[in-house]
């Protein structure tokens, strides 16, 4: 057994040397890798980062940036993919999901010259780790205002995936927004227990509709399932979204407004900081104040529903968030 290990070790070391020499001459361009748990075209969390990187690549010119991504990565697979990227000399490895936090922590020490980034997280990590946090409570707050002002039944549905990550912030921000606009409105919050079970999200949305909710929202990719249930419901039922891509699909007619993450700013930030010599050790917040979010109304939305009054209230809140006048204490919200 021992002999076997010695031989294996020797062989492995040789191979390692070989691999090392192959990457001796690094390319002048910046090499970015993305690791996601879903797919890069999931019309949600993963796609928004993917699209942002592509946009940055386009802006910088294809020659200045190399990009590779890995999909459907469970934590253990992500660990090996990330190590593979790191050992192949990638400069920035973005592990797009809070679930990757642990593997980045474990890996950062092993590859000190590589910059790692993951989010959602506000942690200050190791010297070569960036984190990024969408302050999703801000988008939740705006959507909450709309929901609170639009609802006629006074019941608002929220289709949660699980109570964690940016979904947790969004849910609480939404709560605050509704309370600010319409303190009497009741929020029907429930969870499917899964980020990806569209069918269950649809079932949950139907349950909320049956219960009398007339404005719904939801986070994560499963929300599409809920939006579909809304679209199939009789007129007068509306959706506020956490993803601008939802506006462009056929069901988008029911979407009053949607916010979206602007990861391009994060990616640009990462590249710039690394070029300037900062490999990590910072948390990059994403807020309205630093361009971390888009927010769009549905241009075709019925003006009787999305009244100027609603828009005015929302726009004011957005300005206040931008200027820092409005601070949201989302942690204080008890569900």
């Amino acid at each position, binding site marked *: 057994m021992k002999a076997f290990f010695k031989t294996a070790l020797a062989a492995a070391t040789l191979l390692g040397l070989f691999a090392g020499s192959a990457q001796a001459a690094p390319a002048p361009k910046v090499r970015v890798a993305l690791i996601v748990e879903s797919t890069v075209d999931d019309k949600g969390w993963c796609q928004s980062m993917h699209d942002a990187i592509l946009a940055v690549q386009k802006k910088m010119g294809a020659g200045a940036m190399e990009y590779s991504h890995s999909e459907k990565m469970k934590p253990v697979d992500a660990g090996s993919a990330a190590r593979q990227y790191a050992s192949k000399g990638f400069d920035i490895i973005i592990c797009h999901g809070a679930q990757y936090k642990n593997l980045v922590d474990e890996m950062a020490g092993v590859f000190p010259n590589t910059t790692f980034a993951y989010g959602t997280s506000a942690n200050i990590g190791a010297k070569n780790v960036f984190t990024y946090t969408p302050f999703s409570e801000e988008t939740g707050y705006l959507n909450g205002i709309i929901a609170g002002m639009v609802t006629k039944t006074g019941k608002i549905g929220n289709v949660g995936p699980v109570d964690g990550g940016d979904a947790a912030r969004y849910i609480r921000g939404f709560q605050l927004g509704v309370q600010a606009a319409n303190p009497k409105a009741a929020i029907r919050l429930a969870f499917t227990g899964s980020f990806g079970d569209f069918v269950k999200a649809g079932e949950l949305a139907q349950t909320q509709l049956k219960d009398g909710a007339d404005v719904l929202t939801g986070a994560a990719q499963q929300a*599409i399932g809920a939006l579909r249930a809304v679209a199939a419901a009789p007129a007068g039922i509306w959706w506020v979204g956490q993803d601008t891509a939802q506006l462009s699909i056929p069901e988008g007619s029911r979407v009053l407004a949607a916010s979206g993450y602007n990861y391009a700013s994060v990616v640009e930030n990462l590249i710039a900081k690394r070029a300037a010599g900062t490999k990590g050790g910072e948390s990059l917040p994403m807020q309205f104040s630093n361009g971390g979010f888009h927010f769009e109304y549905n241009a075709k939305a019925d003006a009787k529903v999305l009244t100027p009054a609603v828009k005015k209230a929302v726009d004011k809140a957005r300005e206040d968030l931008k200027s820092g006048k409005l601070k949201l204490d989302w942690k204080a919200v008890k569900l």
Partner: protein
Amino acid sequence: MSAGLMIYNVLCLAVPFSVALLLAALGENFNQRAGVFNLGCDGIMCMGAFLGFMVPFSLKATPWAAYGNLLGIGAALAVGAAMGVVFALVTVTFRASQGIAGIGLQMLGWGLAGTLFRHFVGGVTGVEGMAAIAIPGLSKVPFLGGVLFNHNALTYTALLLVPACWFLLYKTPWGLKVRAVGTHPRAADTMGIHVDLIRYQALMLGGAMAGLAGAYLSLCQAKMFSDDLVAGRGFIAVALVYFGRWSPLGILGGALLFSIAQSFQLSMQVWGIKFPYEFAVMLPYVLVIVVLALARKARQLGPTDLGKPYNREMRF
């Protein structure tokens, strides 16, 4: 909200929730009645869901668009039947261990649907799907109207399939053969019945129905496809067959009970009853185990040769 309305709401939703389970379990019942335990039901549902979605999706902008859903359902039925044949080849002709082969088929169907979807479609995209058809007159009946008569065509089909399956199983020559083949295949063989052929047919029918169940998920429930759309519902369907004691009516009862539990746990969350939602989500699964444990006496009623490959040349 009054308690009556609450019950009404739970029931209204339970019916559509139950359809996929009901279709798949009614199909699985034919498999098991013929003596074959098909755990691959889940994989077949994945493929059915994929094709049920894929066909209307790719016909969207063509003159065929109007028939998209119908053709999608046809494709789901066909792929289900084809996978039934694959399973029959492995378990009937090659006489492989059915439980493990089922896991293999499940992985194959799941993987194949995901792979093909990824290649031919890519990301999340919706289809129009099938709309609810309120049955004139009946849908206005208080209580029952909302619970039973305001659904899409596949839901009605599934409900009508319950008596149809009962009739097929107990009142037709083919049903007679299926029951004989699952209980005493050698006796059936000595009566000139081609045991393997009947098992192939039963697996094809069961597969087609599982495919239809998948299409229901993608066309009616979600109106979209993703590779974890089915999310283990096929396994529940298999359990429901035991639960329903191999009778279509029992299976209907089981599917409804499970769906009511599901609808109830969602409603409880929506009503704001506080307890960890994880426990609510696991409730239906716990229910299945409990019922399986209680239903053990029923085993003798079922196909006694379930799970055993038949080999004509095997001597006593």
